[in-house]
């Protein structure tokens, strides 16, 4: 996994609460047994006017001009501005794979669903929580300013907007892993002894589990 230190990019507003993982990547694309290639189908039902299936050439489908990702000013966006409970619903990591594959590096929202949040960390995608009033302000600024871009610095935990700076907080274990591009499995396997010890004592206290 690539370390995440800093990102700068155009911001695209996704102005809806409870954006669920079915909306981020519809189920017909979950038949893939790979981790890549989901980008063209990010927000598929909202992004295209014709219904999609995996066999199509998505470049030839009719885009929905009302959907932000299709609008010229947001085309190059790599930062998603979203509403509360982003990523709710299913556990499908495909939702995060689709965002990353599309080129999204940061999602900013007032809150995220728990499983989605874990999935972001495992794929080097930064999810930033800001309080609702700040999010409201960002939505207004993005709409008023074509080409609106932000710099997100994970080391300093600071967002630089065209008008100022916004500090943000992130749980230390998430921040540490993102900054270093660390893999949970490697980290966990450093503690093989502790796991085996746990199993030994658990075998005594709850033998029916073994």
């Amino acid at each position, binding site marked *: 996994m690539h370390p995440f230190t800093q990102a700068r990019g155009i911001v695209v507003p996704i*102005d*809806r*609460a*409870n954006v*669920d993982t*079915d*909306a981020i990547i*519809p*189920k*017909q694309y*979950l*038949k*893939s*047994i*790979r*981790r890549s290639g989901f980008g063209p189908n990010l927000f598929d*039902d909202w992004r295209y006017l014709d*219904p999609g299936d*995996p066999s199509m050439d998505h470049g030839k489908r009719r885009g929905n001009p009302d959907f932000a990702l299709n609008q010229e000013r947001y085309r190059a966006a790599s930062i998603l501005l979203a*509403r*509360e*409970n982003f990523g*709710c*619903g*299913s*556990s*499908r*990591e495909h939702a*995060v794979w689709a965002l990353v594959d599309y080129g999204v590096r940061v999602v900013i929202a007032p*809150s995220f*669903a*728990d*499983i989605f949040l*874990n*999935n972001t960390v*495992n*794929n080097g995608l930064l999810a930033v929580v800001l309080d609702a009033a700040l999010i409201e302000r960002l939505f207004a600024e993005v709409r008023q300013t074509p080409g609106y871009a932000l710099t997100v610095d994970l080391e300093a935990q600071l967002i630089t907007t065209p008008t100022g700076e916004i500090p943000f907080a992130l*749980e*230390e*274990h998430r921040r*540490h892993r993102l900054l270093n591009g660390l893999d*949970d*499995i490697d*980290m*966990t*396997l450093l*503690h093989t002894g*502790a*796991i085996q010890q*746990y*199993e030994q004592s*658990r075998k005594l*206290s*709850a*033998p*029916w*589990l073994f």
Partner: protein
Amino acid sequence: MTKTLYDKLWDAHVVRVNEDGSNLVYVDRHLVHEVTSPQAFEGLRLAGRQPWRRETVLAVPDHNVPTIDRHLPVADPASRLQLQTLDDNCAHFGLTQFKLHDIRQGVVHVIGPEQGAILPGMTVVCGDSHTSTHGAFAALAFGVGSSEVEQVLATQCLVMRKSRSMRIAVEGRLGSGVAAKDLILAVIARIGAAGGAGQVIEFAGEAIRELSMEGRMTVCNMAIEAGARSGLIAVDDKTIAYVQNRPFAPKGALMEQAIAAWRELHSDLGARFDNAVELDAAQIEPQASWGTSPDTAVPVTASVPDPEQEENPVKAESMRAALRYMGLAAGTPIQEIGLDKVFIGSCTNGRIEDLRAAAAIVRGRKVAATISQALVVPGSGLVKQQAEAEGLHRVFREAGFEWRDPGCSMCLAMNADRLAPGERCASTSNRNFEGRQGQGGRTHLVSPATAAAAAIAGRFVDVRQWL
């Protein structure tokens, strides 16, 4: 020190506290299905790793399986490859799988408890958000992404932070004709789709104690629709009676020892929760959702709410978007909403009691002419077998329902069972997101009895008047 049930389960599974404040948490049971596991197994192979404890894994194909013509090869090549990949991975790594033609095959959250593979006090994970179902057994159960599936396969552990705790007490008794599904829909409507975010919810109170184990599974199943990490219910006699004598459950003296330990799996008197909510069961009516989020359920006797009455502008806007998508006008009585399809099944309501409740309504009646398809999809092969032994399949078929083979089916519409754009469905599943049951499809979440009555009437009705 007094502990909540969640504290007890958590403390029993912490392997170590990491330097950054996260915890290494041990996993006792790992359920696996075909859609979220291929990438995890691929990762394992690429790293040259073996599963840490293969006997903790139970795999089953469910999301993407056909529910008809099972004797034929799976028609869709992508689905076929995904099913084949699960077979190959289970064979390669030596994992237990109930294959497509095994009588024990079914929706992953139905077959786990059915086999006694879910025991009180366990930690349970699956690459599926509705893993919360298993909290009905006082097991700490939660959904994970594919990277975490790989992590659990490789290390038997997850890196986690402890969540906050919430107690939802439903006191008093549910009225007749009001089901576990109505209870949980009412709870979610009350606390919102993110009301449980970052929290583990313990369901308590008389109405929860009165539920059967299957009803409790329905409740915990949908804890995730309130955004919760897990749902939990304390162990009582019903829990133990349910588990006893199932194939994977301990036997003899080991079972006696286990039962003694399981009796401790409840929150201590006076244990502190971060949040508490109380509901009066007697006030809960049969529910139906009108919008595109599971927190939009209202009593079937009510009307579609009006966004213009909503003070929060963001909420009002999402209500307007939901009404547009659902093709509904504010103020429409729920009972005047006509339907095109009916789906009875899923890990929420695909168990034998659900099918009995639906069949009791359907018996001797006919599906309305305006309903183009009414599906009953049992949650597992064993549920199907039991239902057939009771003659329920005949009740459904004679009324005009289709009687299918087990799987997720129209709950998420990965296979051929789905809604066409604009079609409206009464569904016993758990999600009414846009496109969930097929692109452009409109889902109303209801209980099995309400879905059955809706199939007969062609619109929503108050099932209490049909009893």
